[in-house]
């Protein structure tokens, strides 16, 4: 199909061309991509999306490489291109002679920056391995500072009569100001956002708003002071993310994710379409020499730059960059709409050759996006470049990674070598000790990363199970490994549903009947001798069905990361029991036949505490607890008083079996610290 050959960005540009042509054909003047709109509205969502979901580990591991490519590479490109184009202009005949060195350098700086939008659009589709992706993409993000500095510098210089050495030195320093200033602005806003999110536990609906607002403000603030807006945005996203994610509810997280993806998709589409339209609409001045030499030198500069820099970088890297990698990096240097918008910003007064510049810029953009964009995929296949591995993050991997981190830190300490790991460890400790306490609400601030990760995985899988319906469709990836397989000492769970004797069944039926009848009444006492003759068979059947479903669900959940469920009884049964008696249920001494069910309330210390019931089941289903055993083991105490009025049979207590509790939490999602009254029951309570 077409889309497998032609990347989406190309198609969009073609659409833009068509639309532009159409509008022109009708006689109207087609709209051009104004720089204001581009920089203020179209670019930020894409950058925020990239920054917020930036894979931090590979980024920081390769930060040195990325910075060298971004800074040195872009500088090299700009000057090399600018210089050569100046030479071309001098030799190019009367049409080009008047273009000065500064103008050419400015042109060079505009065209030399690798564009994040274009890179994202093309690299998304080819799924290359993480390293290359982060190298090219990181470079495209970080070179914004260089571009901003060079652009403003040359633009200003062009209006000067003379450029002194002092100006150049100041320009050099301004680079640091721009980039570090941008990052600082981003960090400040990120911290403020994280701090704000700490207090949003009561108004969860506006949580996503803070993320977007603060990020956008960071961008605007940076742009206001001519600092690097892109770096500010990235810094804000990166800084706020770990703390915000710990504070906000699951739904807010989903909202943020989808809104960002939506906005960035829309922006990207609009950008490319506008590019197409602007091409048709703009005034063009085609000069063969200029355009062709620009194109040629762009490619040459890129290739040379990558080669030389890689040779230099490889001296310091552990994982060296192979020639294949270098080729992809060089080939992936796409130009895009940022270059166009910057060119558009030039004013005619100082730059009479603006149209020619714009034409050249558009040609280069088209070339890189169409030719390079289309051919990169077959080339990746041809060269057998490593592709992205779809690895599921597993708890084992997390354990191993953390173990390895600590091990390497320890070895570094023993060697007396203050390396990477040492500083990273120090940063982590600082983070844990001070920063997390300020920025994360409540108990989550003390939660170690491993636990947080574990809970995240559990939640994810619980949600998956719930979504998949729970019955019938057992995904083939599920293995039947359960807790018995690894720990034979745990009592087998074959009887999640105890086989009830006739008497017990009768008891249960009675309970159900009494409760179904008395849903509207407040029960103060439980009297199992009040028999009702009415058969509530339907309710009974329904209950059986639910039991079955719950059992299958539990079984599946047991196979996952969830703590093994050592439940005496099915959740529906325990619900029935709680529902029947809002008061604490005293197990009667002679009730040997009734399974004792008491429920341990969720420990307030950790809202998503993994398992509070001791692992070794002492009193098993159906057996009376021996007198010398204390009330722990597998007894679940009824929560005192769960809530007066919880007389609905199927109202789950807030302290229900952990897996259901978690399921409930997913569905009702009160956030990381659910107060008991916030958890919405499955079924609304009766009035």
């Amino acid at each position, binding site marked *: 199909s077409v889309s497998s050959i032609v990347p989406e960005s190309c198609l969009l540009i073609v659409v833009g061309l068509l639309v532009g042509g159409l509008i022109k054909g009708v006689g109207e003047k087609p709209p051009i991509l104004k720089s204001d709109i581009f920089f203020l509205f179209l670019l930020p969502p894409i950058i925020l999306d990239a920054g917020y979901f930036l894979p931090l580990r590979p980024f920081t591991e390769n930060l040195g490489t990325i910075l060298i490519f971004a800074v040195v590479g872009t500088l090299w490109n700009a000057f090399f291109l600018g210089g050569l184009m100046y030479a071309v202009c001098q030799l190019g005949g009367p049409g080009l002679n008047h273009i000065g060195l500064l103008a050419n350098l400015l042109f060079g700086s505009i065209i030399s920056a690798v564009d994040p939008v274009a890179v994202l659009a093309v690299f998304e589709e080819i799924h290359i391995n993480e390293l290359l992706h982060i190298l090219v993409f990181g470079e495209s993000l970080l070179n914004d500072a260089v571009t901003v500095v060079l652009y403003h510098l040359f633009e200003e210089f062009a209006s000067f009569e003379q450029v002194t050495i002092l100006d150049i030195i100041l320009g050099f320093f301004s680079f640091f100001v721009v980039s570090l200033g941008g990052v600082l602005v981003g960090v400040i806003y990120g911290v403020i956002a994280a701090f704000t999110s700490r207090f949003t536990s009561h108004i969860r609906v506006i949580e996503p708003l803070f993320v977007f607002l603060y990020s956008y403000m960071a961008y605007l603030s940076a742009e206001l002071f001519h600092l690097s807006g892109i770096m500010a945005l990235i810094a804000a996203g990166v800084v706020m993310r770990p703390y915000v994610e710990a504070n906000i509810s699951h739904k807010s997280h989903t909202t943020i994710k989808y809104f960002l993806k939506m906005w960035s998709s829309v922006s990207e589409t609009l950008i490319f379409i506008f590019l197409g339209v602007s091409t048709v609409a703009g005034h063009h001045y085609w000069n063969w020499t200029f355009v062709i030499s620009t194109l040629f030198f762009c490619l040459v500069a890129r290739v040379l730059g990558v080669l030389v820099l890689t040779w230099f970088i490889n001296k310091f890297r552990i994982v060296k960059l192979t020639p294949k990698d270098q080729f992809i990096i060089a080939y992936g240097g796409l130009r895009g709409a940022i270059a166009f918008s910057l060119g558009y910003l030039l004013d005619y007064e100082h730059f009479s050759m603006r149209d020619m510049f714009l034409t050249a810029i558009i040609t280069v953009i088209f070339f890189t996006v169409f030719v390079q964009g289309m051919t990169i995929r077959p080339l990746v296949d041809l060269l057998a470049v490593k592709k992205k591995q779809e690895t599921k993050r597993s708890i084992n991997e997390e354990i191993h990674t953390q173990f390895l981190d600590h091990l390497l830190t*320890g070895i570094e300490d023993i060697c007396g070598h203050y390396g990477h790991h040492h500083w990273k460890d120090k940063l982590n400790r600082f983070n844990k000790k001070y920063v997390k306490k300020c920025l994360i609400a409540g108990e989550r601030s003390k939660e*170690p990363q491993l636990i947080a990760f574990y809970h995240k995985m559990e939640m994810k899988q619980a949600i998956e199970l719930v979504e998949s319906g729970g019955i019938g469709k057992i995904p083939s990836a599920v293995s039947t490994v359960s*807790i018995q397989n690894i720990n034979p000492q745990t009592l087998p769970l074959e009887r999640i549903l105890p086989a009830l004797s006739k008497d017990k069944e009768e008891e249960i039926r009675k309970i159900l009947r009494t409760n179904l009848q008395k849903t509207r009444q407040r029960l103060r006492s439980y009297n199992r001798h009040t028999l009702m003759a009415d058969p509530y068979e339907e309710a009974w059947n329904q209950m059986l069905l639910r039991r079955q479903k719950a059992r299958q669900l539990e079984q599946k959940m047991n*196979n996952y990361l969830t703590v093994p469920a050592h439940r005496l009884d099915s959740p529906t049964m325990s619900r029935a029991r709680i529902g029947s008696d809002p008061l604490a249920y005293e197990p009667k001494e002679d009730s040997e036949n009734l399974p004792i069910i008491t429920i341990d309330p969720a420990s307030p210390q950790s809202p998503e505490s*993994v398992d509070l019931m001791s692992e070794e089941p002492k009193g098993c289903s159906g057996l009376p607890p021996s007198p010398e055993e204390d009330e722990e083991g597998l007894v679940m105490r009824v929560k005192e008083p769960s809530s007066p009025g919880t007389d609905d049979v199927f109202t789950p207590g807030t302290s229900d079996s952990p897996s259901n509790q978690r399921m409930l939490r997913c569905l009702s999602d009160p956030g990381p610290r659910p107060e008991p009254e916030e958890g919405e029951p499955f079924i609304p309570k009766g009035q």
Partner: protein
Amino acid sequence: LSSSLAVTSEQIEHLHRRFKQLSQDQLTIRKENFDSIPDLEFNPIRGKIVHAFFDKRNLRQESDGLADEINFEDFLTIMSYFRPIEMNMDEEQLDRFRKEKLKFLFHMYDSDHDGKITLQEYRNVVEELLSGNPHLEKESARSIADGAMMEAASICVGQMGPDQVYEGITFEDFLKMWQGIDIETKMHVRFLNVDTIAHCY
């Protein structure tokens, strides 16, 4: 010595200086000497790390068990496990390289030296990892370890009937678990900066 362990002579110099510092100019180091490193205090798995230095299996000695003291050669042997990968290695060398590193890790997990990582040992590992958080309950560590073990079992053995018991993670299983992760690129320490030598007490 240099070629067999693929460490440069400069690095050996540096390590020797460090060794002298740690051993207080003695010829051998004991476990107690490691206590003098201040930064190691914060490390949750310091026990296992120190243990690994004295583990005879890592020292490539035939016997089993723990050595009481190690000399400089042994110290270097342990350090060589952390050398970075070289460009000119071929497939076979790379594979051996990788296995060596993983074996070192495996020995750290497998504390009773029986050749497999049992549930109890794995629980121990997770507990140690989480030991920096005093308020955490043991339950959490245990259930994480259980979940991880189940996952490992499902990776290594696949479908298991309810009666089968998964004894523990053997070295082959361990290799399988690490398949996705490039251990050879991750498990290394840079020896570049020989000037930044920390001082002990």
